[in-house]
């Protein structure tokens, strides 16, 4: 059984990695879109970020030095990623469910990191740390997922948008983290501990005896990890693009050779839209279409 658990964990980790990379690469390789920013843009000059202003507030802005305030992005992103600041601001009641859920997952990830680090360094000094993060993480995730599930089942505002998969996903989290916590807490004296288990996993030592409930939690957890990047729950990938490539992409088309090249490539696409005023036939390029006038020659 231990071998099967190891194989499933490795396979799932591989699926997670490949699916995440494929998704990220797919978005990254899409053509440059037209600008569609949304203010405030946190990499503007700090005094502008305060009111959501842009470089367009400066007379002759194109003659002024450009300013990219990295610190502004970090300052925005850190509380957003760690504490879901946007949700706190705009949907407080959801935050009380969503924050424990997400923070619980972060703690679980931290636990995995601490366990792997402990194995690699060869120490058990971090035992108290990963115990704490692991148990707190699982508890918060289960509590958050239950809160989200209850809301999804009872809030009429969510009815139209809810699909069977949305319910399934939350149940999946509850089951996985419930089993992991229960499996660990009921493991009994014969279980050598998480550090030995992770050591066994990393060294492929199949002699480690994994209790049944914990094994079920590990297998389902692995399947959950493989499943996430195949669904909308991979928003940890999407969010990079929605923020950096869309909401905050205010790069002006002035002297940036790479940008100009990408724009030029877009203008050579050959659309096939069928409405007569577009005049697309699959042969004319986007640039040709944009420089023809469908109204010229029509009655004044």
């Amino acid at each position, binding site marked *: 059984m231990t071998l099967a658990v190891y194989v499933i964990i490795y396979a799932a980790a591989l699926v997670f990695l490949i699916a995440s990379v494929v998704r990220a690469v797919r978005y990254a390789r899409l053509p440059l879109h037209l600008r569609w920013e949304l203010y405030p843009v946190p990499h503007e000059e700090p005094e502008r970020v305060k009111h*959501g202003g842009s*470089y367009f507030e400066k007379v002759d802005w194109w003659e002024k030095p450009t300013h990219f305030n990295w610190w502004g992005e970090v300052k925005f992103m850190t509380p957003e990623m760690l504490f879901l600041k946007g949700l706190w601001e705009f949907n407080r009641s959801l935050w009380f469910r969503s924050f424990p859920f997400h923070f619980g997952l972060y703690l679980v990830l931290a636990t995995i990191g601490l366990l792997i680090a402990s194995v690699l360094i060869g120490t058990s000094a971090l035992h108290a740390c990963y115990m704490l993060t692991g148990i707190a993480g699982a508890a918060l995730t289960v509590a958050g997922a239950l809160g989200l599930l209850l809301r999804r089942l009872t809030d009429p505002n969510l009815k139209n948008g*809810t699909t069977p998969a949305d319910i399934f996903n939350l149940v999946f989290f509850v089951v996985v983290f419930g089993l992991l916590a229960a499996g660990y807490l009921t493991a009994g004296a014969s279980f050598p501990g998480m550090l030995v288990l992770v050591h066994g996993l990393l060294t492929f030592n199949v002699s480690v005896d994994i209790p049944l409930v914990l094994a079920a939690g590990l297998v389902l957890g692995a399947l959950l990890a493989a499943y996430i990047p195949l669904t909308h729950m991979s928003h940890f990938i999407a969010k990079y693009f929605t923020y950096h490539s869309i909401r905050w992409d205010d790069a002006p088309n002035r002297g940036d050779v790479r940008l100009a090249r990408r724009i030029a490539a877009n203008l050579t696409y050959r659309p096939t839209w069928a409405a007569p005023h577009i005049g697309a036939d699959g042969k004319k390029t986007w640039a040709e279409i944009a420089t023809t006038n469908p109204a010229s020659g029509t009655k004044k």
Partner: protein
Amino acid sequence: MKKAPVRLDDLAGAGKRPLIHLENEDLMSLPAPLDHPSKDHNWPPLSAQAGEKFECFLDDTCAVSIPQPKTKEEEDALVAKFLSGLDKLFVKENNWSFLQPLLLTMEHCAKCQTCSEACHIYEASGREEIYRPTFRSEILRRLYFKYVKHGGMLSSWQHGAITLNWPLVARLIELSYRCNLCRRCAQTCPIGVDNGLVAHELRKLFSQEMGIAPKEIHDNGSMLQLRVGSSTGMNSEVVKDNIEFIDEDISEKAGIHVETPWDVEGADVLLIHNAGEIMAWPENPGAFALILNAAGIKWTLSSEIAGYDSINYGLWYDDAQFARVAIKHAEAAKKLKVKKIVLGECGHAHKALSVIADRILTGDLNIPRESSMTLLRDIVMSDRIKLDPSRNDFPVTLHDPCNLVRLMGVVEPQREIVRKICPKFREMEPHGVDNYCCGGGSGFAIMSGHNFADWRFHVSGRKKIEQILNAFANCTDASIPKYVCAPCSNCKGMIRDMIAYYNLWESNRIHYGGLVELIVNAMVDVKPGFIDWEWR
């Protein structure tokens, strides 16, 4: 009795009856003097003829007026066209312009409804389900997974089921015109999903594939502009005549000779107005001319096709029309070899030419574009013209056009000006990048077919009326004239129409106007009383 919320499936229902009908009692309540449904304007239902002739079965109003197909074959052909357009939305050759934002929006909504509370249309309607920002997105999302990604049963379990038929398409066409494209919802989405973009992309599908768009923005909008130079119908001769009259009028009114320069080669500034100003609010272009001349700016207007009308309605519904008009604007500037284009008081024109067109205008067509707000701020704050704020000693509030503020980041310049020249300035709440749309955004301000104007005054503009009334809550008395400054032609039109609809000039002396009028009204060298306290 509380009505049952509309379900997604209901959109495909074949019945020839609107899915909802709103009454004043259903809507968000307003402050005094509109603080009871009985004090609200009455609201005519859609006429029976319209219901017989057009596809108006969404919400008892009609923005697009699509003729009803006569046969099942016609319906099927329209659905087939819709499907081919749907495919094209997700193909880079056809939609490179918005493919990445659209795909991310399709694939990552967490359906948490955080965005709903940000939408003024949803809130003002009394939280009517069909106006939820996610409602149309959820339909498009299901269609995407089913027909573009060819999802089967597993996909419909994951993303939800949907029935595609002509009633659904017809209602979706109307529904794409129940959003102001203000993107306030997108600002609150924790993931970065953009439901405003969904309305935009749906409109593009309908226009670019099916040739369907409201006549006000296509036939009488972008097409007319490309044909004669302006959606007002003015050709270059007429516009020059009109400006000449305006110069005369303003000279007389201000006591300063005003002459608008035309087609000056090598000018520093090519000013492009929304030509609607020239027709409806001549004092606005007149005030601009007066200020720029007084400040010693080397400026010009252009009489080239589209060079004297900054509007670009393609922004709201059609990428090709958008690009064509933007290129015409840039060509007018290139021909005159000006240093920069300055956009007059028109929010969508600002965003269209400065932001969205930036990745279409290549080489020498990418002439710098600037907001008149910043130029005016520099003139006012540098004391190049003498101003006496006591001439503006009346309550003033400032409307933030979404396109200028949330979508372009021009927030402070106009505020610096009003703070300096209007001693009784007060903000609306919320304001700046968190503002609410005037309710006329994305073409609504010029769309008034059937009873659509009643819908926009009651629903899409309701939040703005609430904000205006709240801003003037401490001076409602009709003896105190009040001024809503709306530095955008479309917003100004919407606000004018709502003030008139609700009789707020008569009852509370609430007036409206642009920013340059306030500046000229405070100019020491100008005869006092530039702002007319008369309803127009």
